[in-house]
């Protein structure tokens, strides 16, 4: 896949395959094209070339709302919620495209699943801690019951305890059958929970393998894991 912004090509021939049911991590230095890759899959950035197929169906060139309808949800980077809306209203926004009667039941179930959200139901999302906000954003995405969840830097700006909570949440979502593709700077933890992982460098594949293989790869350890 090739993609970028205006004249600048960020992805210069990235190729990766994600198997159903896996957690896949994408790591790499700043500017490697990790976030652009997720945005391109979700339709926020237009692919200049190549192909994006979900179970054989072409996604390249589709708008986000069409990608969403095919079972792909996206959790953007950073504290990406509606801070003035309450936790409950944010969850309602997550289910905006749903018109079925089960929305209310699913929101209640989400509150039970994540008690930290249930206890803050009527609080503005902006008043939640960083970790709680990240869990809220994942919960918003889950309300559409995605087949594939794209998560951009879920541990960004979180303290280690909160980051652990977010990674545990991602693992539990995966155990329930959702495939997860995660871009992450916290490479060590990301690799440790991933079935497969890819290392990008300047918009191209550099390494790939299982999480364990990359954790044990001396070059990856030197350049991306800090030892």
């Amino acid at each position, binding site marked *: 896949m090739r993609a970028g912004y205006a004249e600048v090509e960020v992805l210069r021939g990235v190729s990766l395959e994600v198997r159903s049911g896996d957690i896949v991590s994408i790591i790499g230095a700043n500017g490697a094209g990790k976030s652009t890759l997720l945005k391109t899959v979700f339709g926020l950035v237009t692919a200049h070339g190549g192909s994006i197929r979900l179970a054989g169906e072409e996604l390249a060139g589709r708008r*986000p709302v069409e990608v969403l309808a095919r079972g792909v949800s996206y*959790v953007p980077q950073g504290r990406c919620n*509606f801070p003035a809306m309450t936790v409950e*209203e944010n969850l309602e*926004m*997550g289910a*905006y*495209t749903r018109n079925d009667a089960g929305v209310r039941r699913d929101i209640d179930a989400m509150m039970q699943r994540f008690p930290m959200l249930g206890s803050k139901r009527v609080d503005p999302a902006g008043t939640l801690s960083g970790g709680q906000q990240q869990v809220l954003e994942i919960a918003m995405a889950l309300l559409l019951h995605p087949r594939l969840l794209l998560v951009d830097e879920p541990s960004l700006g979180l303290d280690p305890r909160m980051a652990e909570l977010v990674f545990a949440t991602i693992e539990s979502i995966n155990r329930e059958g959702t495939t997860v593709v995660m871009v992450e700077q916290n490479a060590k933890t990301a690799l440790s929970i991933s079935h497969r992982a890819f290392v990008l460098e300047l918009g191209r594949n550099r390494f790939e393998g299982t999480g364990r293989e990359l954790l044990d790869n001396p070059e990856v350890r030197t350049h991306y894991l800090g030892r």
Partner: protein
Amino acid sequence: MRRAVAWGLGGAALVAMPWLVRAVAPGQQRYVLHILVFTGLFAALALSYDLVVGHVGSLSLAHPAFFGIGAYTAALLATRAGFTFLPDTLAAMILAGLVAWLIGVPMFRLHEHAFAIGTLGFAMVTHIVATNWVDLTRGPLCVTGIPRPALGMGPVAIKLTSVPHYYWLALASLGLVALLYHGLTTFRLGRAFHAVRDNEMLAAAAGIDPRRYRMLAFVVGAVVAGGIGALYAHYITVLCPEEMTVALTINLLVIVFIGGVGRLRGVVIGAVLFTVLPEILRIAPTWRLVIYGGLLLAIVVRWPEGLESALRRSGRSRTA
């Protein structure tokens, strides 16, 4: 209950305003109601503008163009084609909306500042066309003899010839626009508007197409602006290109930001302040505009979120 009574009394006072004004200031009724007509029209126009600026967060500077397109459509249809008030106003609204949709397609490909400059360019071009296409608009000679509106047809037509009549028409129009504004900016659609305004990326992630919702607010805003333009043309009966200069955008921005961006009550307060305050300050004719400018500056410094935020805070502290 108390709230309903207050609304009822307020509404009754607004409807009875022509009689109230005649009782309080018998010689000034025409003048006072004239100011109130302008207040109503500006409030409605500012609400339509706030749909775009305040609720989907697109700084459009094209609103004078839609107002002008509506005003000229109604004026020309009434004076040259013999259209009556309601059909020409309807045509004005449709044409303004259609033009908004046509220019919205390329404009919404632009982002933030580029969008603002693009819409400013469109507003300037529209003004230049109105000034120079003399065969159609009579340019600086203005369209004259625009008839006062009449509601109904034939023998049952009610001609709105007096200022009180027009005051009620402006009040009813403001009420309708306020209802439309409330309907669009609350409930499910309002949430989508605010999602687009507050976080475009997250809105897209939730399946809300930012461009589509921005376009919707832009076109609805233009339709209303076109309708208000038609009412304005029928009220003042003379229409010149100066009515649609970019200065109108500045006035609308002042109304929206002084009152409270994204707030129905705030925008109406802003319109009242914008139209009534300069008239009150006529007691000091030499310093009038200096005082007016100083007051606006003081409001912005003291309540940067607009007067409505101050009212909201004082309301909250009273109930606490």
